[in-house]
């Protein structure tokens, strides 16, 4: 019970990612869909950090030791921006249609 395999962590991250995908596909509430996107982004972060941790033990290291984590910080910044804009769109949509249900919003159809 000492060994924490890289494959286990990656499978975990993949699993969370797929849960997020399922949420995006099956839910209609726009807020929840946005949260699912956050979930997917986070799972990717976990995978990157785990890979970076595995790279530390490699000799020679394939990337600079801090590189993966800087990558994650960038993803974080993008996620923050996405959340801000996403919620703003959500508010605008709600103001127009009085709903946050993606199933009811189909005026995108040209």
């Amino acid at each position, binding site marked *: 019970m000492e060994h924490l395999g890289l494959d286990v962590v990656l499978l975990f991250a993949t699993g969370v990612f797929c849960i997020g*995908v399922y949420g995006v*596909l099956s839910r209609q509430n726009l807020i929840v869909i946005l949260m699912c996107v956050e979930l997917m982004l986070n799972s990717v972060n976990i995978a990157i950090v785990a890979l970076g941790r595995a790279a530390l033990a490699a000799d020679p290291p394939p990337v600079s030791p801090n590189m993966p984590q800087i990558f994650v910080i960038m993803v974080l910044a993008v996620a923050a921006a996405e959340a801000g804009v996403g919620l703003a769109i959500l508010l605008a949509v709600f103001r127009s249609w009085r709903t946050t249900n*993606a199933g009811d*919003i*189909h005026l*995108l*159809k040209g």
Partner: protein
Amino acid sequence: MNATRWMFLIPILPLAGAMLNGFVGRRLPRSLVALVACGGPIASFCLAVLWFFELRSSGDELVNWLGDWFALAGLDVPFGFRLDNLSAVMAVMITGVGSLIHVYSVGYMSKDAGYARYFTYLNLFMGSMLILVLADNIVLLFLGWEGVGLCSYLLIGFWYEDEANARAGKKAFIVNRIGDFGFLLGILLIYVTHGTFDLRQINTDAAGGVVSASGLAISDVAKLWIPLLLFIGATGKSAQIPLHVWLPDAMAGPTPVSALIHAATMVTSGVYMVARLGAVYSAAPSVMLVVAVIGVVTALVAGFIAMSQYDIKKVLAYSTVSQLGYMFLAAGLGAYGIAIFHLVTHAFFKGLLFLGAGAVIHSLHHEQDMRRMGGLRKELPVTFALMLIGTLAIAGCPLLAGFYSKDAILEQAMEKNLILWAIGAATAVLTSFYMFRLLAMTFLGERRGAGAHAGDHAPGGHHDDHHAHAGPVKEAPAVMLAPMAVLAGLSICGGIVFHDLPAFVDSAHVAAHGVLGALVSPSGLLGTVFFLGGAWAAWFFFVKSPATREAVASRNPAGRVLWRFSHGKLFVDELYDALVVRPLDVLSQIFYLLVDRLLIDVVLVSGTSFCARVVGSTLRLLQTGRVPTYAGWLVGGAVVLLIVIFMVLNGR
């Protein structure tokens, strides 16, 4: 005078007039347009006469090399003019007759809306015709050849608002294209054989039987086909059988145009071309025979048709075709000088006759049907006198121009081929007959107004529903009569004055008689008999005893058949219609239905749009406008992409 380098001015001056009138003529006053239009040809005429006498005195041809037109690998086409005896005669004749007709046109077209346009075309024609005549190589000649064809088309369809005129223009253009196709092939064959376009060089090579540059003998095939193909072009341009059908229809244009282009100059360019390349033709006796036979048959057939036409211009048109046949007969007999002699005299009297017909038409407010004329002798005495001179000249009255040139041709035929002579002689009788018929119907007897079709009622004679305008019949203005008077003078004395013209043009020509000797030669005496016979027949049938004519034309079965064939123009148009036009129509209808409607419209156009619509309406189902659907496709796409990537990685 050492100014031959200015020779290019002869064709350029009318072209400059065309440019000026074409671009700004609509805004200029009519008098200025007329001045510009007449100034160019008259100036060219003066220059041409000047150089003509220069040539006569020095005997050396004048050359004006302007530079290379275009030069490709092994293909050099120079742009140059050459004035030798033949082209000098032609240039003087064209500019002279052309200037007279320009002056005449000032009066004839004075009330027409397209005044500037008319003179633009006419000047353009003069320029093209002079390029044709003066060209020192056959490509430049072809440029002029096509240029005059274009102007002919433009002027036939000058009153294009009328569908029939536009149709006549198109007919002339298309028929000429058929001939030009042969002409162009001939030019290409010349280049392949001789390796040069220079007319002088081609003649020299053909006469020697070898190409001077290579020293190789000209093959029999080239010897035969070059003149034959070029002659096809000549039949188109000069309206010989079987391409004669366009010229009578070309009478749809203004009458001065008919006089200038379709009688005096353009239609004779085929004869000029044959004379120009005389050595090439002389080297191929079989082609010479073809030329002579086609010429004489055309002369007879056209004369036969001219006998029964009612439209005054149509009679003259067929007469022109007939006279052109005489010229080709002369050329085919190797007497190029005589052909050109007849060409020149014909330009005088046929120009005069057309201008006279124009004056009659002008006075009668565009009435062309001779059945509604008659008795005009009293109202139009000057026109009558001038027309009489023209008629006497063409019919071959002794001492007048036509007598000498026609007599010379028939004399040649009598020496060389009696069958050709017999046909030519018959045509001479016909010529005299139909010309005096025209004169009788127009000027003699009593005036027949609208609706009263006195005489000449025969089966098949259809009545055009023209409205002859009642009104006073006035003599044409002086500006129209003066050119006619000049031409009349030339028609009277042209034969005597220019008696040595054949020898001047063709050094091989040996004059058989002097001016007076021709009168008493056997051929000359016979010619006088033909003239008198035809004139008497016309007088008998149309003045003395119209009843006899009625009897012959409508009751006698043989006469009736002849009359029908003559009046129906031997049904050549109908024949072409059935043999060429209809099958082409049917074929194009089939292609229209199969290719255009089915393949292009249905399969390609509608098929394409149908496919696009089907694909679009199918793909439209994907665009639900619902975000989750798009997300689903996104995931699906990612999955497929991943599968592909893995497959590629594993496969490697």
